[in-house]
């Protein structure tokens, strides 16, 4: 008899809690953080389109919709893939080399000012307005704004834009990983 009472009581309690929880989940429903923003925040914003989308944000949208893989961004490379895998709770995979290779050293565009004819075609190509110039005037790249996307290189009719490695400075220099790293356990 007492067992029966206990079972019924427990069942009742469980039922009441179930109702409360069900109600709470409707009443206190929060809009999930827009996942596109979170993905976009992890992309390098080079805006190069190597992922086959029109820029970083469209790629972020495609990932969120499940249309694109997380390993299509060469400028972001391994770091971005790991971060995306972590965010989305999926398995990391190596960069898909159909989209390009990760650059070992960051580069920026430089315009040969002797050759530039002032056609403005590169200005129209630059996704971050990093090129300064006007029709028939010499153009120049603002180094600090350049993301190194290389989009300005093909449109130039006189082939005067080069991608050069960014110079290492005291601020950007990094201590190397000691070369006995193999003794460290991998996590």
């Amino acid at each position, binding site marked *: 008899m007492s067992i029966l009472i206990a079972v019924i009581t427990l069942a009742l309690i469980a039922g009441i809690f179930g109702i409360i929880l069900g109600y709470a989940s409707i009443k206190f429903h929060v809009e999930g953080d827009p996942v596109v923003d979170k993905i976009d925040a992890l992309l*390098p914003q080079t805006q190069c389109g190597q992922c086959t989308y029109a820029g970083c944000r469209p790629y972020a949208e495609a990932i969120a919709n499940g249309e694109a893989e997380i390993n299509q961004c060469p400028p972001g490379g391994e770091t971005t893939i790991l971060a995306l895998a972590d965010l989305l709770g999926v398995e990391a995979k190596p960069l898909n080399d159909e989209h390009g290779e990760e650059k070992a050293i960051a580069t920026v565009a430089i315009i040969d000012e002797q050759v530039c004819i002032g056609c403005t075609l590169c200005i129209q190509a630059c996704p971050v*307005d990093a090129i300064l110039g006007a029709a028939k005037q010499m153009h120049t790249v603002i180094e600090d704004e350049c993301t190194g996307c290389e989009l300005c290189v093909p449109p130039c009719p006189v082939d005067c834009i080069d991608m050069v490695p960014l110079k290492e400075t005291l601020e950007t*220099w*990094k201590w190397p990983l*000691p070369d006995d790293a193999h*003794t460290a356990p991998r996590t």
Partner: protein
Amino acid sequence: MTEHSNQLSNFHGGLKLSGHKTMSITSPISQAKIPAKVIIPLHQHIGDSGELLVKTGDKVLKGQPLTQPTSYVSAPVHASTSGTITEITEHKIPHPSGLSAACVVIETDGKDEWIELTPVKNYQQLDATDLRNIIRHAGIVGLGGAAFPTAVKLNPGPTHTIETVIFNGAECEPYITCDDMLMRERADEIISGIQISLHVLNSDNGIIAIESNKPEAIGALKQAIKKNNTTNIKVISIPALYPTGGEKQLIKVITGKEVPSNGLPADIGAVVQNVGTMAAIHQAIHFGKPLISRIVTITGKGVKKPQNLDTLIGTPMSELISQCGGYKENADHLVMGGPMMGFTLTTDQLPIIKGCNCLLVESSDDQQTQRRVMPCIRCGECARVCPATLLPQQLYWYASSKNFDKVQDYHLFDCIECGCCAYVCPSQIPLVQYYRFAKTEIWNLERDRQKSDHARIRHDFRQTRLEKEKQEREERLRKKKEMLAKKKQENPETADKDPKQAAIEAALARVKEKKEQAGINPKNVENLTEAQQKLIEEADSRRQQSKVE
């Protein structure tokens, strides 16, 4: 004025190291010779480098500013002797990267002629801001090695009340003796600088902390205090335990309080200043002299006559070594700083900078029998000695596997890179190198993130701009069309024509009219043959006729 060693606390861990200090204190501080040229890096401290004030070919006097500070955390550099600027160029500087940076090269004239100096007569009458400004313009930075602009450190801000001001004469790292010698020989200057600092910080009392293995320095400072009838400064002898001279460790020893993780000493009402910096403040206020020299310990088993040299900033290291009798046969490599926290240099053709307290020439017998790195055996020795109470073994794991989130969860940035953990590690793992690697890697990631945020904003802005331009274009086109439609209604004939075509025709008509009004200005009419002349005359007569008609 009395010692309170009985009230001192201990910090966690630490090491008893053999000092190797006696070799460089056998002779008093000597003056380093003025070199043929001084090389002065524009950026020698944490913060922004200033704006250049000089150009190649300029004659400069000793103490003349070469840069002016451009922001709050910025310190200028000065000509350390008189001469002519021969070059402003990239030159190798003492930095673990071995990279070059912008330097002013001065060919010295040997006269060592000072610029006109303006000492402060009565500093008590100046307020803290003015004094900090003088200190900033004198280019004074922390001389203990970190080279943080002193004027910033002397401004804890209105939200902090400073109860404990500690003057750091611990000098706990082996081999280095520059502060020891300074305290012995220039105790008065230190006391004077301390009084100025206390005035700036609006604090009544100061404590000078010195390791107990420097009785002469303790004695000299006590005597200076007595001589000046000073009552607000006391000297405390602290146990010699590496790294007791670390800022947070010293605060723990003196006050018993812990500086919070990621916090500043000011958060618990403390400020720590190096004693050498105090002597520099004395020079700046009482004599108007900027920081253009410092005492450097040249020592180690690989140099012939170890000693302390009062050195002009910018003096090539090679000159100091030769003034110390040169290298010994067994000299192996050069270290800037001490054996625990210093870094190896690849050349001695580098200038002395403000933060350079010691040049250590290690000999081949200093090298422990070939470093054989073995896997970590999880003995926990490293955690036992870590003065920052970290878990170095965990830090090592996460740093080496590039797990930069986890390594920060284990407080990587509280690591002071003292090297205690690597020193005791039975597997001889170069632990600190892993922490340095991880720190610079994380800073770079952060910089990349800021850069990409910036690019995102610029890209969005461009998209909006393009969109707006497109709309405006469409709007214009629409208006034009409307107008054309209206015109067509009013005047169906002319409006039928393509507007472009109409415009061209109108322009041609205008040109024709103008030509006719102005008459003709013939060109290329010199040296004509008779036949040509005739043709022109015919044409002219035709034109006349058509006009008449």
